[in-house]
């Protein structure tokens, strides 16, 4: 199934915003990118492989369309994804 979906063109365009350490390591604050990842976790691992993010996914949180989300959440076309490093407000 997965292979079929992939072949059928599972690719989608999503927007990713970066903050704090991730912004520093990526070198930019926001980008639109094409991905075949089906969940936000897969997307993080894909980007981590590409940009060498030092933070493990288990030490950060993730937001999908400006709401906190599970790592297992599925990605859809035009989604906005934000990876959230450990916060330090206050």
């Amino acid at each position, binding site marked *: 199934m997965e292979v079929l979906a992939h072949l059928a063109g599972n690719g989608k365009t999503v927007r990713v915003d970066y903050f704090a350490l991730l912004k520093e390591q990526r070198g930019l604050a926001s980008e639109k990118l094409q991905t075949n990842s089906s969940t936000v976790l897969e997307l993080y691992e894909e980007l981590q492989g590409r940009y060498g993010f030092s933070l493990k996914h288990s030490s950060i*949180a*993730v937001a999908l369309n400006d709401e906190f*989300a599970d790592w297992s959440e599925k990605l859809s076309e035009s989604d906005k994804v934000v990876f*959230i490093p450990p*916060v*330090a*407000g206050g």
Partner: protein
Amino acid sequence: MFSLSSKPIDADALKSLVNTQQAGAYVAFEGWVRDHNEGRQVTGLEYEAYEALAVKEGNKILEEAQKFSILKAHCVHRTGALKIGDMAVMVVVSSAHRKEAFVACEFIINEIKKRVPIWKRETYADGSTSWVNCAHGHKTAHGAKS
């Protein structure tokens, strides 16, 4: 209401928002930029916020604080560059009796520090900088459902 501000926080204006004739108690918390953190001399810092979610989560926390039977609660958090002694965050709470105002004010600032997507980069005396809490890759506590 929870809000972010790139300018100095107006403490008097914020306080006036919780003033009501039923209020017998007022508790305020202010976070100030210290000159040291974990043994290092801090010379300045910068706050960065994921604004859309920070405002949403901050307001959720203020609503949750209503469980303490308070009258009013507000919070402003700074963004941008701050100097030693600057106010980074202010929480104000009013209630009929004091116990509730203390509990609610402490609850609000604790939850903000745990859950609101705001990050702090410290600059040290030697010129180096560090994103607080990121260096050691601590497990985050903010509503992460991983």
